[in-house]
């Protein structure tokens, strides 16, 4: 009886896993098929050809290389800046008796919970006004501004729970506020920073809405919107589109595999707080 239940459990879960991984594998396989093969047998058939030329096409003709560079140029500074600023705010708000600290914290969190739609038009207009429209700077700025509230809130919760004695010992040893922040608090906050770093990397890298709101030129587009453009450019070349999809997914998958534990605990951090 028990064996039967275990068997049923695994059979069910294998089928379910297949339902989740199958479509992904299908796309990976499709990216290595030739155009003629897909044209003759359709996207639903098993592969009868193998080529990697699709990746070259997506990479150079489709502009994925340029798009990936744009994505990194936006994502890396955005993650660093927003976590840095959020850590500063969280440190001050959690370890010092700043008047109105609770209101400030919740106001910042509330900003992150706003539906972005209410911000789109004003942000687009504001970036035109400041001359940042259609530059990666605008995208970095809005990603930092919009993410800050949530990161501050999570880091605040984490820093608040660190024992106060460490900070007092450092103060007695003559450390100033800046030193306590960089030498004591930041190292202790590393687990939370790693978790948020992995999460924010995927969020910012995967973003579509802000990119198409503050950018216009194709050459400036990060990889997510570029993937949509690729679809227009290679209308029925499903193999090239599939290759582009794989290229666009690789960086976040790499970050996830590298920071797996942080990633999952980061999601949980947001949930339990």
């Amino acid at each position, binding site marked *: 009886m028990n064996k039967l239940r275990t068997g049923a459990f*695994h059979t069910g879960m294998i089928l379910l*896993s297949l339902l*989740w991984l199958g479509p*992904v594998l299908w796309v990976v396989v499709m990216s290595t098929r030739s155009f003629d093969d897909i044209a003759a047998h*359709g*996207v*639903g058939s098993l592969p009868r050809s193998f080529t990697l030329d699709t990746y070259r096409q997506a990479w150079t003709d489709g502009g994925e290389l340029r798009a990936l560079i744009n994505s990194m140029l936006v994502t890396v500074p955005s993650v660093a800046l927003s976590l840095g*600023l959020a850590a*500063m*705010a969280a440190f001050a708000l959690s*370890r*010092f008796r*700043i008047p109105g600290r*609770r209101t*400030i*914290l919740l106001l*910042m969190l*509330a*900003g*992150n*919970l*706003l*539906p972005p*739609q*209410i*911000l*789109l*038009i*004003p942000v687009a*207009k*504001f970036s035109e006004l400041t001359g940042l429209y259609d530059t990666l700077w605008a995208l970095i*700025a*809005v990603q*930092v*501004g919009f993410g800050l*509230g949530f990161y*501050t*809130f999570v880091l605040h919760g984490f820093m*608040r*729970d660190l024992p*106060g004695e460490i900070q007092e010992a450092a103060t007695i040893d003559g450390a100033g*506020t800046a030193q306590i922040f960089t030498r004591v608090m930041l190292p202790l906050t590393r687990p939370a920073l790693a978790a948020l770093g992995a999460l924010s990397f995927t969020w910012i890298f*995967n973003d*579509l*809405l802000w990119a198409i709101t503050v950018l216009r030129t194709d050459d400036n587009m990060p990889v*997510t*919107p570029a*993937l*949509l453009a690729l679809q227009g450019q290679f209308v029925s070349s499903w193999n090239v589109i*599939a290759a582009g*999809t794989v290229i666009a*997914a690789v960086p976040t998958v790499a970050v*996830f595999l590298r920071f797996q534990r942080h990633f*999952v*605990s980061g*999601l*949980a951090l947001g*949930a*339990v*707080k």
Partner: protein
Amino acid sequence: MTATISTTSVTPTRRRRRSARLSPLLVAFVLVPFAVESVWVFWPALQGFWFSVTRWDGMTPPTFVGTDNYVELAGDATFRGALINTVIWLVLFGGLSVLGGFGMALVLQKERRFVGFYRAALFTPVVFSLVVTALVWRVFYQPDGIADTLLRAVGLEHLIRPWLADPQTALYAVILPALWRQIGYVMVLFLAGLKAIDPALHEAARMDGANAWQRLRHVTIPQLKGVNAVVLSVIVIDSLRSFDIVWSLTKGGPYHSSELLSTYMYSTAFQSLRLGYASAIAVVIFVLALAVILGYLVRAFREEA
């Protein structure tokens, strides 16, 4: 979760004086991030409300028109359709991802052989962007794609249709990929919550003769109250924000059949260039999200207190 434990240990240190006055550095630590968020979030949000009572094409300055935009919204059939679709989206996408995620978390909570693999499989799509997800599923829905091949294989070819191009099915064909990606995410949230439940509670309930269903009903679910609140808020906010997946699969079409408030707002603003009217749609989205945001903040406030 840890708030109750930490407050007792924090109170004595709070009484001690930490710093007599605020150093300029600390003020900067708070003000700089706050200023950045003000410029890119708070100020734009306020402007958004102002634009919603104007007529504006983006070129000439906006002109005040009072409640005209909202009156027009009330009679706009596309808006009504988008509102209904958003509600359907909320119920189906939100409801099913909570049910599915919770179910998967229950099934996969015990450490046993291959459980790590199953969890990873369900979680994989979470790291993809919604545009990647959309393209993966586009292959599935293509004429002669996987869906059609599967239907033919089981002799149901009469059901075959252009899934994304048929107004009857477009909305549901878009919800499915969104669900596929969300279930793993919700599962992880619930797994974290389940892990935090004291096993002694289950042990005690079992001793008292509670069966599996009763333990779920009277131990697990009440213990998950905190996580439930977060998941519900996340789901509602995510549903109202949903844009990427619809935009990449159907752009709200055909004939607005998969239009959500978010996509309607975007196309009104940046394709029809009716910025005032689009702002009014954005305000409606904001109002729908407001109750959830307030609930979330009240909870956060209580925990911070």
